């Protein structure tokens, strides 16, 4: 089901100060996609999720889930959480400690007065879907973190909601388990026809899981797009910086030539991915560290830059090098088997397709 959010604002008063958690947010979440709200902490992403599920009431605006208006300030509609028929996985999992796995997962069905044998069957089916077959009688608190997480997921899925919401569900897991669960989650959700709204501050999680990402800051949606579009071709400096490590360089636009926008900057004259920018205007050039590729011997072609390795850190899968070019210091990711040392002069070429220009 599609979710339409129209002009939603939410303020908090805390300690005499007003905090704007959501600032006139308008957003459409397409049906049957994994849609991620990504942003730094305090950007309003969790508040937006809680407004969708009905645990918070916005101050203004309207929220529709499918054809139903679940919240409208103007029409004075506010469907209570329990009538919205959604599923949700909480950051703390919210596994009820006084119930066993069966009761935790079967709860939404018990509430709907589903027949006992049907409940048993569907709980078993859902548990096997999340790889927890036969765990029904275990006390919920005796499970490991990853298992509790999957119980929470099973509970959210068991009533077959059209929309499922995730509030940073992986943030309590350790790094290795987080990676595994992320993959599982992607598989699970891929098999279902379901709209998933996923809140996280972890950019890798967002990139790995999502069909669409919305980046938020200070209660506003900054940019919406597919992971690749956000990573390679974002329109905002904040987004480019937040979604991955980036070298951001001040430039001045010189003109357009052969399908590239040409700019002047500390690296010299660089041909970039084409952008509609007025000649003479200022722009930010964004280069991801992994696209600074050292040339062996003489380099030809476009965007050849000479520099000197100022520092070199071996991090296992790569070297992280800082390369000095004039006044600019660029972060580069270099293959771990490269023959290179600190102080060495290097030459690299930049592919114009990976030289991204951002207005301001």
């Amino acid at each position, binding site marked *: 089901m599609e979710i339409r959010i129209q002009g939603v604002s939410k303020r908090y008063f805390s300690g005499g100060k007003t905090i704007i958690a959501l600032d006139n947010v308008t957003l459409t979440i397409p049906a049957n996609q994994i849609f991620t709200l990504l942003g730094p902490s305090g950007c309003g992403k969790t508040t937006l999720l809680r407004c969708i599920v009905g645990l918070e009431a916005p101050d203004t605006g309207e929220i529709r889930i499918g054809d139903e208006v679940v919240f409208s300030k103007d029409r004075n509609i506010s469907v*209570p959480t329990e009538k919205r028929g959604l599923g949700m996985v909480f950051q703390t999992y919210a596994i009820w400690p006084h119930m066993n796995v069966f009761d935790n997962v079967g709860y939404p069905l018990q*509430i709907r007065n589903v027949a006992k044998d049907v409940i048993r069957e569907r709980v078993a089916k859902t548990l096997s879907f999340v790889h927890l077959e036969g765990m029904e009688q275990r006390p919920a608190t005796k499970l490991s973190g990853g298992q509790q997480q999957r119980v929470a997921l099973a509970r959210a899925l068991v009533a077959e909601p059209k929309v499922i919401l995730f509030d940073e569900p992986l943030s309590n897991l350790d790094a290795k388990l987080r990676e595994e669960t992320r993959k599982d989650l992607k598989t699970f959700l891929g098999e279902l026809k379901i709209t998933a709204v996923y809140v996280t501050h972890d950019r890798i999680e967002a990139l790995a899981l999502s069909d669409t990402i919305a980046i938020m800051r200070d209660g506003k949606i900054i940019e919406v797009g597919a992971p690749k579009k956000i990573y390679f071709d974002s329109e905002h400096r904040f987004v480019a910086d937040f979604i991955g490590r980036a070298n951001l360089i001040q430039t001045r636009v010189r003109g357009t030539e052969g399908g590239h926008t040409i700019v002047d900057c500390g690296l010299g004259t660089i041909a970039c991915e084409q952008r509609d920018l007025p000649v003479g205007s200022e722009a930010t050039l964004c280069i991801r560290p992994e696209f600074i590729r050292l040339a062996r011997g003489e380099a030809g072609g476009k965007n050849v830059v000479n520099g000197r390795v100022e520092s070199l850190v071996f991090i296992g899968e790569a070297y992280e090098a800082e390369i000095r070019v004039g006044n600019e210091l660029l972060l580069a990711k270099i293959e771990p088997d490269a023959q290179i040392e600190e102080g060495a002069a290097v030459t690299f070429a930049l592919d114009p397709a990976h030289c991204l220009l951002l207005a301001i």
Partner: protein
Amino acid sequence: MDQKRSKLTLSLVAIVGVLTIGPVLMLVLGSFSKGLTAFGSFTLEKYIAAYTDPALLEVLVNTVVFVLGSALTATGLALFLAYLNTRTDIPFKFLFRIISILPMMIPHLLFAVSWALLLNPSNGMLNLALMNVFGLEQAPFNIYTLWGMILVEGLLDLPICYLIIAPAMAQFDVALEESSRVFGANTWRTLLRVTLPVLRPAILAAFVLGLVRGLASFATPSVLGMPGRVNVLATYLYQMIATGFSPDYGAAAAVGMSVLVTSISLIVVYRALTAEGEKYVTIAGRGYRPTMIELKGAKYPMFTVVALLSFILIVLPVTVLFYTSLVPYSMVPSARAFSLMSWKHWIEVLEDPISLLSLRNSIFLGVVGATLGVVLSIFVAYAIVKVKTRTSGILESLSFLSFSFPGIVIGVGFMWFFVQTPLYATIWALLIGYIATYLPYGIRPLASAFVQVHAHLEESSLVCGASPLTTMRRIIAPLLVPGIVSAWILMASMFVRELTLSVVLSRPGTEVLAVQILRFADDGLWGKLSALGIIMIFISTTLVLLATLIGGKLRAVEA
């Protein structure tokens, strides 16, 4: 939802306000009035009369020595026990748990009585025995002194001090100590330079609470102080209103004001200290376990000390009382004493209409009072923990206020209040007084239970489609059961043995167990007293066991 919540909070503030501010206000008004019947015309007469009484000075000195002495004794012992339990490999640790729940089982009044039976100068059993053994002319000990009172009150306040210090010590991050060791300090020096300073807020909090308890204590001064004419403020006040032909509630209110102000100030200090203590809590991740210090050679001597303390605190009073209830008069255990044993005192007590009435009243107050008290506590704890507005902050302060109430003083305040109402001299007056005075004991376990119920547990039930009512029934209530049960036990066992408030508010027809026991003590009827005392211990212990059983059952059903 928000509106409903703020309405709830407001009405709770009104109820708790009437219960706590009400008696204080009446005490203030009463202290400026001529007498119970002449309420409303104001005068300073009572203050002048009360504070110029030359007897007051001696009472004040006694009070200061008694309160400081007993608080120091209690804190010192608690510190010792807490350290042994949380940080050393002392054997039989279950003894510490028994010591900590002791106050629920053996009422202060009976504990004090058992010491009077052992060490009173004329026929105390231990004194008589020592005189026989060593051929002494005079009794070697006299419990009817300030030192006797300090010892007994110190032992009585030991469990509450222990309950404050032990958790703080258990939460203590050993890395702080380990780093001290790494930098070259030995165990003893680490204890003095690191452990104790970090625990200072908890230790001071325990001490301050000991002071409050000592100031409010009536059982010990009345049983051990009054026979030797060692009066402290509590007994001084009691004599003003309960003995002689013309009880002077005005003067009692005037003196009581100072006690109340002192007590409230101490509680303010206590709260500041516990807040400070929370700042000091530095740890503690999962799977964390403090290192245990090996006592080695000191292990069994230390254990002997703990065992002796447990014996003094638990076994001795019950044994002495039971023995006394069976022998015809006070005598050292001997073949003759055992041959004279009979159920005479028991039969007399069970045929005594006033004793039976007091038994009925106390059970009624325990069961009905605790139930009403817990219901009120549930709402108050919910408002304090979950609503978190400015009004709920007021509610928290209000409910904490009664924590500082010295029973006698607040009883005088309630007296001024109830005299104006038809509740005067009814059992309901006692019920309201009990709930008002002991409300924090209900709120505290419930507040910590509410804290444990994370908002997500509740919200996740709503998302699953359960209505707020179903959520309350299926999720919140079952998670609160342990808190509710422990609050109920605490309140019921306190109500069954309540003394200080009752001696002021109880009237013919509304006698309660403790008041009847005190009356027996005044008349020197030790045998009957002991019989009734054992019944009282039996009831409060049964309550504890029963409630634990029900709590276990309820949890089993949900799981």
